């Protein structure tokens, strides 16, 4: 028996039979249901407990029942005011986050590459990460005066350190064996970064971006509550108004919306992270998507 034929046979044996890659609607629906029912059940439980507390009559004057809050939410959604507020807030979120992404990435690359810079800034970056973003606002308002700039500044201060740290961690954890392989291959300087170190650090970078988003979102919400902004109201401003009006149902509705936006964006990051790890074989294939 020719050895190359045996080799081909062995290859086929080791790879096993072709895996099913069916994407039939039924399969997708079943997958969606598997992912959805625990969440739906959790929400139903919360609403149930809320309803029971309401029925006991505790804090009767302020605590509205879930039905009142949901109908309030429905009214806001129908009259476009909510969507406008979400639009205003998301625009700020996007600008602030992109700024943080650019600044964090540049600082991350520089600190990872230049040892003296790392000695100087490494621990400061980690320190900044632990700084509560609300504490920046007095400084930001004095420096930038009331307005969007102050909020964007605090968002960057909150998110950029996480993004930079993610990138630095990724660069540091590039497997030495791959570096050795890359150097033997003739990758040097910039090419080494472009083709090896940056792709290798992508998972840690994405993790940093995800954490950065959480910080940016928190900073933004705090900012919309604390900073006076002229112009169309964002979610935070609506929340503030509800507080002034002692409108429990309204405030709760906005909180629910803020929570949902945060969760949806987080899901996008998680999806990207999972896809990345699946491509690299870092995911147990038997786990559900």
């Amino acid at each position, binding site marked *: 028996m020719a050895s*190359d034929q045996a080799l081909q046979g062995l*290859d086929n044996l080791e790879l096993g039979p072709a895996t099913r890659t069916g994407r039939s609607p039924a399969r997708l629906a079943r997958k969606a249901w598997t992912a959805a029912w625990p969440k739906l059940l959790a929400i139903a439980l919360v609403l149930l407990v809320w309803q029971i507390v309401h029925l006991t009559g505790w804090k009767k004057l302020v605590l509205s029942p879930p039905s009142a809050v949901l109908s309030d939410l429905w009214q806001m959604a129908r009259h476009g005011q909510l969507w406008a507020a979400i639009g205003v807030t998301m625009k700020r979120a996007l600008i602030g986050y992109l700024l943080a992404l650019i600044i964090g990435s540049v600082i991350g690359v520089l600190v990872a590459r230049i040892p003296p810079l790392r000695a100087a800034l490494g621990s400061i970056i980690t320190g900044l990460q632990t700084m509560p973003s609300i504490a920046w606002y007095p400084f930001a308002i004095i420096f930038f005066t009331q307005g969007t700039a102050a909020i964007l500044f605090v968002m960057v201060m909150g998110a950029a350190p996480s993004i930079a740290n993610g990138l630095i961690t990724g660069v540091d954890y590039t497997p030495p*064996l791959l570096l*050795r392989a890359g*150097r033997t*291959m003739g990758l040097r300087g910039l090419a080494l970064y472009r*083709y090896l170190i940056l*792709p290798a650090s992508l998972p840690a970078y994405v993790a940093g971006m995800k954490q950065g988003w959480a910080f940016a979102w928190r900073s933004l919400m705090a900012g919309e509550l604390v900073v006076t902004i002229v112009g169309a109201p964002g979610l935070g401003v609506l929340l503030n108004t509800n507080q002034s009006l002692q409108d429990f149902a309204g405030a709760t509705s906005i909180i629910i919306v803020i929570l949902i936006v945060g969760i949806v964006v987080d899901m996008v990051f998680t999806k990207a992270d999972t896809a990345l790890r699946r491509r690299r074989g*870092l995911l147990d294939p038997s786990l559900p998507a």
Partner: protein
Amino acid sequence: MRAINEQQVTSPAATPGTSPTSADTAFATAVRLTDVSKAYGTGRTALLALDRVSLTARDGEFVCIIGASGCGKSTLLNLVAGLDTPTAGEVDTGGRRVGLMFQEPALFPWLTAAKNVELALRAQGVPRAERRAQTAELLEAVRLSGFGDKRPHELSGGMRQRVALARALAQHADVLLMDEPFGALDAMTRDLLHDELERICAERTLTVLFVTHNVREAARLGDRVIVLSSRPGRVIAEYDVPRRGPRRIDSPEVANMAAALTDRLREEMGRHGI
């Protein structure tokens, strides 16, 4: 045992590279190490990994280097690859391109098999138009034509190691340094890969320095086998392995050679046992 042409090197000062059998003047010398020493650290704590190692490999020759743990095999390859510089002595590859393969495939997990090979071509400055054709040809050479779009984690260990071989070949290397490349594979796969490696080397006139722990592997593959001592690494013996037609891992001459190598290695290990 008569068939085995053995040259025992008793003192490290002797230079086996200049002995009549190994310095066949019909072929140019591809790799020459002259009195190469490598120490790590300095002063009292310095560790001598290699001690005045001299060896040569001719163009197209398959040289196996064998030794127990601590013989500085990997250090030796790093020096030849130019990833490290010797403390003393000289490493000369006459400007030949050197490719390196490790025990782990060390493929980039975010690239497909084909892209891994192609990246090596890109690093060599091969224009985009030629890269695809050359990649296909290299994957064909390691019998992986149908698997170019698979990612490393989707391939078996043996297949990954063949992608790594294709990648090393993509470096247009004249000299291929292999650091226990089949050490982590099962015996069946390893046997088949020996055949493949032999075929590929024959097709391309590659000079190979092949480091291994496995005496049978050394006897199976090598035109010459060099035995290193441990701590520090010195050349203590050198065997020419006569080639009479195709060899197999279970050929009698391979078994004889392996037995001789085992004896020599045990003798060396015993030196450290007291």
